């Protein structure tokens, strides 16, 4: 069980880093698109969790993800409007969305405690992948200081989410 779970996490993390690892340094409009897409993906996963999760702590976690990611994405939209930047679709965003759609379908087939565990395990892996991408690629590549600062705030928030997800995962064991 433990080995299988670790393998699953490793697979998800690989998908995550594969999505982030391609191409040259992203531009600000691309970074904005990637960050926003990453938020939408987690909101969609949480919406699915609200209908499928059975554990109370998992449901509350899903509510927290929706509340926070919507708040951060609203900040992102306000900022791109202010900066008159149009977010630009790109390969990283596309790969992220594709992987997320596959994951939603996969999770959709599970139910009960198995779903709860798989959703939370994926939340841990997903936030890890996004945080590492923010730290090593998106934040260093951002040229607008306000965008960089929003990404830095986002990183702190998502690191909190990762810890929260790890705590929920530990409680489910």
């Amino acid at each position: 069980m433990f080995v299988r779970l670790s393998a699953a996490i490793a697979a998800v993390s690989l998908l995550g880093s594969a999505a982030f690892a391609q191409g040259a340094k992203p531009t600000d409009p691309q970074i904005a698109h990637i960050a926003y897409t990453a938020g939408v993906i987690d909101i969609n996963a949480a919406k699915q969790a609200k209908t499928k999760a059975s554990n109370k702590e998992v449901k509350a976690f899903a509510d927290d993800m929706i509340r926070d990611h919507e708040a951060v994405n609203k900040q992102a939209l306000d900022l791109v409007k202010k900066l008159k930047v149009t977010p630009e679709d790109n390969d990283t965003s596309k790969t992220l969305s594709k992987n997320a759609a596959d994951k939603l379908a996969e999770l959709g087939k599970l139910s009960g405690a198995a779903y709860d565990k798989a959703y939370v395990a994926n939340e841990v892996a997903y936030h890890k992948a996004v945080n590492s991408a923010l730290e090593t690629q998106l934040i260093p590549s951002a040229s607008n200081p306000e965008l960089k600062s929003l990404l830095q705030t986002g990183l702190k928030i998502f690191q909190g989410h990762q810890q929260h997800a790890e705590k929920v995962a530990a409680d489910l064991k």
Partner: protein
Amino acid sequence: MMPRWILPGVALLLGASVSAHAATIQITMENLVIQPAEASAKVGDTVELINKDVLAHTATARNGDFDVAMPPKKTVTFVLKKAGAVEYYCRFHPNMKAVLNVAQ
């Protein structure tokens, strides 16, 4: 010459001015961290909760003494009514934890 019946009123006013000297304790939540991690106050003091994040937080006492909603980028206040060492956290971000020591 002050009539006698005014005296209780004066005493009340004095009482009021004592509680007006109660302190205000500032607690800030920023980037999902509560500062200070440990604060001291007295019953009757006002706690000023400053939320610098774009996220909603709560200050929720584990023993049920208080549960205050903290909207994004807002400051809310409440008055401490009970003594004790109160552990509190944010219900939305349970990793955010701190302690408030409330003396009588």
